[in-house]
Each structure stands twice: as C-alpha cells, then as structure tokens.
C-alpha cells in the first residue's frame, strides 16, 4: 500500500519561479577602472595566498591554513558594491575576504605567522582575524557559526535603522548546518538586511556536494522561509557584481534576506594538509584553464584594449612587491610578548 501511495505522488519538476529562486541578472558591464581594479584585487588575493602557502611549507605558518585560490571573484565582485558601513563575516577560508575589505596584507600575513603585528596580535591565527575599523567580523573556525553571527550583525543594523547590510559567507558544507536554517528563519521572519553568500566550491572538505547535499541547488535552500536565491557564476566577477548589486538593493529596500549561491572552485586542497585525492587533476586543470577568474578579466582587458600586456605586468610587479613585503614583514615582526598570554580575556 505504501508503495502504491508513493507511486501516485505527483512527480513534478521544481518550479524555481514559484519557489523563489530567481534568474541571475546579466553580468555587469565593467568600466575600464572596474576591470583593472578587479584584476588587481583578485591578483593580490592569489599572490598573497600563494605566498602564504609557501610560508606554510617553510614552517613559518602553523596550524590550519585554508587558501582561497580559485574563488577570488566571489569576494571581489561583492565587495565592489558594498558601502562603508556594510559588514562582512565568513568562516576560516578568510584571507581573501580580509584583503577585499581593505585590511593590510602586512597585518594579515603577520597574523598568519603568529606575530605581534598581526591583526589579532598573533592570538587569532589564520582562522580568527577581525577588523572593527574595516567592518570585518571574522574569521570563524566553527563551520556555520558565522551565519548566525552575521544574522546578528543584520539584526543590529535593523535595530539601529542604519541602512547597512551584513554579508555572511559560508561554504556548501556549512550550508547543511542546523543553525544556518535557524538563522534563515529568523532573518526572513524579521526581514533582516543580510546576504547569505554560499560559496559552492563543490567540496565540503573531501566530500563532494553530490555526496553531502540532498538539494544540490543551494540557491533553493531558503525556499522554506521564502528567501529568494540566485545561482551565480562565481568564476565571473561581472556576474558576481551584478548579482550582489541586486541582492544589496533587495536588502536595503527592506525586503529581508537573500541567498547568493556562488558556483566556484578552489584549486588547492581544503587546507594545506589536504592532498585532495577526492578529485582528479583533470577536473582542477579544466577549471583553471577554462574558467579562471583572473584570466577571464585579463583576456577581456587585452581584447577590449583597456590596457596592454605591459600595463598588466606593471600591476603584477606591484602586487608581487606588496606580497613580498608582507611576507618579509610577517617574518620579521616579533612574536607577541609573553604578557599577551593573559590580556584580552575580559575587559
């Protein structure tokens, strides 16, 4: 009987329009300055991360170290639209987010090396970094916890009626955590101004989305709460920019939260100590050669004659100098004074 009942249940394709997933807006047309800024910002993240990987290999950076290489367009495209008071919060793959929010590469790198000139004076490390000044609220090591916290940032914005939006990032893995849905519910109920950015890089550490997610379309994860979602090509900074512009307007209009699923990819392992045996080299190589976010911008810049190869080389050199300087600074900065052991526990 049960089998028959199941058989007669309607089998209907999910109607996105009915359920709240909205088509991605056309990729933004970027001005020359915007293209060059995107190129520069993404390249800074990539070179910074490569250097961090190198320093990790040298034993200068300890513990866990999660690199953002491959995902640069996501945070770069979103940040392009953010206002000064808007907040950002993310999990532990956070170096790119901090650089995008304008935090100094020296201070970030010095935190990675655990030195006194780091943003947390060496007491936070790669996964726990903050900047009150730049409205960056961390840097969190517990998968999914930052989503509730980011919802709280939005709660505070609404409470103060300041017009600001919080942007809470999480990965496809974190999108399965219970508190994420508790947060979705409250954000929708109270119409909180927050964007939930789900960076779908296809793997929750070593488990592919196919093996961990019952609903593979993460832009639909807010359906039960009436939260609209947009699936975005997270490798194309123009698509990210237009989608986040839409989302920020949605929040600022008082329409409550919105989900942006960023289809992206990390080239490196989950963390430095992950050999990434769960995917093929071909898969990685294909993404790198066909969809690399930086290469896409570079090709447009050249094709549209916004700048010459030589102009870009100047930028490359500049970025390399910033990163080399940050690495040097981070290795020369002293370790925190032993008295720091007992500071910042209570105010």
């Amino acid at each position, binding site marked *: 009987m049960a089998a028959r009942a199941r058989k007669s249940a309607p089998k209907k394709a999910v109607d996105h329009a009915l359920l709240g997933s909205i088509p991605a807006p056309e990729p933004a047309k970027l001005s020359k300055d915007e293209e060059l800024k995107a190129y520069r910002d993404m390249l800074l993240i990539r070179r910074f991360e490569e250097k961090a990987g190198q320093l990790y290999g040298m034993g200068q950076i300890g513990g866990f170290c999660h690199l953002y290489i491959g995902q640069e367009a996501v945070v770069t495209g979103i940040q392009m639209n953010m206002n000064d008071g808007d907040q950002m919060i993310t999990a532990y793959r956070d170096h790119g987010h901090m650089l995008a929010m304008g935090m100094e590469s020296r201070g970030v790198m010095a935190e990675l090396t655990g030195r006194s000139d780091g*943003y947390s004076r060496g007491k936070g490390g790669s996964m726990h970094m903050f900047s009150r000044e730049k409205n960056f609220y961390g840097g969190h090591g517990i998968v999914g916890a930052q989503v509730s916290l980011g919802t709280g940032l939005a709660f505070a914005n609404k409470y103060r009626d300041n017009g600001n939006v919080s942007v809470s990032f999480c990965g496809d893995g974190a999108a399965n955590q*219970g508190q994420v849905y508790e947060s979705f519910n409250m954000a929708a109920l109270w119409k909180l101004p927050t964007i939930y950015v789900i960076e779908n890089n296809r793997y929750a550490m070593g488990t592919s989305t196919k093996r961990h997610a019952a609903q593979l379309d993460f832009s639909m994860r807010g359906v039960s709460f009436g939260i609209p979602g947009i699936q975005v090509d997270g490798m194309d900074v123009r698509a990210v920019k237009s989608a986040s512009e839409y989302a920020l307007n949605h929040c600022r209009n008082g329409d409550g939260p919105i989900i942006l699923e960023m289809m992206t990819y990390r080239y490196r392992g989950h963390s430095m100590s992950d050999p990434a045996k769960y995917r093929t080299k071909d898969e990685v190589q294909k993404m790198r050669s066909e969809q690399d976010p930086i290469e896409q911008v570079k090709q447009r810049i050249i094709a549209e004659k916004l700048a010459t190869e030589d102009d870009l080389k100047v930028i490359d050199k500049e970025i390399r100098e910033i990163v080399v300087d940050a690495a040097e600074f981070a290795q020369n900065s002293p370790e925190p004074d032993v008295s720091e052991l007992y500071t910042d526990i209570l105010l």
Partner: protein
Amino acid sequence: MPIDILMPALSPTMEEGNLAKWTVKEGDKVGPGDVIAEIETDKATMEVEAVEEGTIGKIVVAEGTENVKVNAVIAILLEEGESAGDINAEKSSAKSEPSDDSSAPAKDDSKAASVPAEPIAVEPASDPDIPEGTKMVPTTVRVALRDAMAEEMRASDDVFVMGEEVAEYQGAYKITQGLLDEFGPRRVVDTPITEHGFAGVGVGAAMTGLRPIVEFMTFNFAMQAIDQIINSAAKTLYMSGGQMGAPMVFRGPNGAAARVGAQHSQCYAAWYSHVPGLKVIMPYTAADAKGLLKAAIRDPNPVIFLENEVLYGQTFDVPDMDDFVLPIGKARIHKKGKDCTIVSFGIGMTYAIKAMEALSEQGIDCELIDLRTIRPMDIPTILESVKKTGRLVTVEEGFPQSSVGDFIANKVQREAFDYLDAPIISICGKDVPMPYAANLEKLALPNVDEVIDAVKAVTYAG
C-alpha cells in the same frame, strides 16, 4: 637573484619527506601555481607548486631521494635574464641550508619560555553603602530581575531582551512581565524555538556594540547554544586581540525545578565557570539578583546569569534606591561565625541556611558565605574565613565530579593548608541523571542533613 625552492612541509608536524617525482626538468619555464614536483610522507602525497615565475635553473635534490629535510633547497629558480652561471656565483653554499637567514624566527625547542605569572585579580569593589533610612521593600526574585532589566533598558537604548516567549507571553516564568508594554517589540523580541540560532544572533548583535540580554527558557536548552556561548561570545575578545567582544547577558533558570526529570534538571555553574572569557553569576537573594543583573547588563563581557525557578517566587528585602548595583566577583558573608565555614551559592544557600540554623541550636557557629559570582571567584573572602574557622564545607546542587566545590577545595588546600583542621567536604547533587520519581529525586539532590553531618564531621562534633 636566483630563487631557492625549498622542501615544503605538508603539515605543522612534518620534519622530512621523500621527493617522489620532478614534473619539470632543468631549463623548463614555470609560472606561479604550476606543479613542479611531488613529495610524499607516510600520510600523504602532495604536489609542489612554483610560487614565482622563472626557469628551473638547477634541480638540487634528485627525484627518489628519501628523508629530505623540510626547508632544504630542492631546486633553484632563475628569474628573467638570469642564467645558470648566476647560481654558482650566488649560491655556492646553497646545498642544504635554507637561505632566509635572519628572517627565520629563532626556534628554540629546547626549553619553553617560562609561563608568566597570572595577573593578580583586581580586588572587586565592596557592596555599595545603603544610606540610613533607605526603605527596604519585600520583593520576589522574579520582580527584582524584571526591575533590573527595566531600569537598564530605560538607561540605554542599546539594551534589549530576546528569547522564547519573552514578549507577548510576558515570559515563560514571567520574568519579562510588562517589558513589552513599556519598550515595544523592537526591544523585547520573541524568538522562534531556536536556541543555537538566536544565541548566535545575540552574539553577532553584541559584537557591534549592542547589549543583548538573551533569555533561555531554561539553561538546559542552552546546551543547544553552548558553541555560540563559548566559541563565539567568550573567545572573540581574545581571538581579535581586543578589537571586539560580546558585551551581553545570557540568563534564565538553571538547575533542578521539581519533577521535570533528567533533561530539565541540571546545574551549569561548574560548566560555564570552566571557561575563560565568561563571567558567571548565580544569585540567591532578590537584592543580589537585582544588583548583580544590573551589573551584568553593564559589564562589557559576556555574563552567564544563572537563576532558579524555585527561587523566583521567594521574597527578600531589596533596598529602594535609584540605582542599586552590586559588584561582580564579590562574595557576600551571609552570617558571620567561628566554628566552620560553609560556602554556597544560588539554590544551594537554602540547604546551607537551614543547616546553619539547626547547627546553631546545637552550639556550632557556622560562617556562611554566599559566593554570588562563580567566575571570577572571590577566593580571598573564602580564605579569610577558613583561616579563622579551620574548616570548610561547600554546598551546591550540581554533579560532584569537577564541581565548584572541588575547585574551591583545591584553592583552599593550596593557599591555607596549614590552617585546615579537617578535610574539606563538598556536598553536591548525586552522581546520577535526575530521576523523575519523587522519592528518588529527593535523594538525588543535596539535603540539609547531609550538610549538618558534613559540618559535624569536620568539627569532630560527632
């Protein structure tokens, strides 16, 4: 200048590995991100990527070499315009020494730096003087808590209360009665039944500088939220190097009520007192409840405020003052005495008081200390008392292992060993989940006779 490519570490604990394979050869051009080699340890194989652009000038360590030390030079990369000749000129001694000399931190594994002394706790302020002639108003703990919140909400718009049934229902235990009417739904926020989520929302709001009061219908339900309380609220100040923290209060009834069984009857005093970055308060009287809740709301740190359902309806005198605030971290001497010190807090005080009164009739004069704050704990007041009485009994409802009493016993034996005339006894709840049956429940909780017996034992009063 040619660039050294070093043997990388795959993990913080790796010291050496095998160079399994070169995927490039001398003379090959490489760019950042290009795989140049594979290395392996007993745990994993990993690709080594080039970090800089250039030409492989020299492969120093041949493939198949085992036990290559981390940071040994494995190859040399030539930058644009350089040739192999530059290697010898620059790198005559590049065999195995890593080249970044002064920039490497002094790594001294032979001895750990000595641990600095824990800073001496600032002496907490004493209770405020209550001016002569101040009217003492009999008040229930319930109303005292409500008044504390209302006064602080009037004083600052940053203070708001959130939790299940706090607004329209007027509080599951009526602690927030009337607050919605006075402050409106913006500041008295009913939440869904979502402890983990709304605790996180509260912490996030606090990180921006708001002063949330997060009510848990009971602290048993806060177990769903304990990650946000500890990992987010308690640790952020430290992890951010002092940039931001969570100025907020988590409050609600804690401990056993009556006949609600194992999942609803548990004391969390010891649990939260374990965590640096938190303050933990557990008042007994209405005056302490009011004065300490006001202090907790003003405190710039996350404060766990443990109430008790059984005490909500009990009445105590509360001074009728404009702004009655008590110091966090200061114990209250409930009654002075000379024969034995009893330390308790919260509902534990009800057993301690009855025992003290019975013992007094039998000629044993106890000094009873109400801790009020569990963390930071007022150890000096306890020590001063024990140095006088030479005896100590602690009373609490929580489980015995790693109890608050055991912590106190450790401090006292260390700081006042020579003053002790008897072993310290900590009276706790029994080491069992709370049973439902009335007779078993009674047995599971501490009782007055146990306290009396303990005091008699340590005073050798038979």
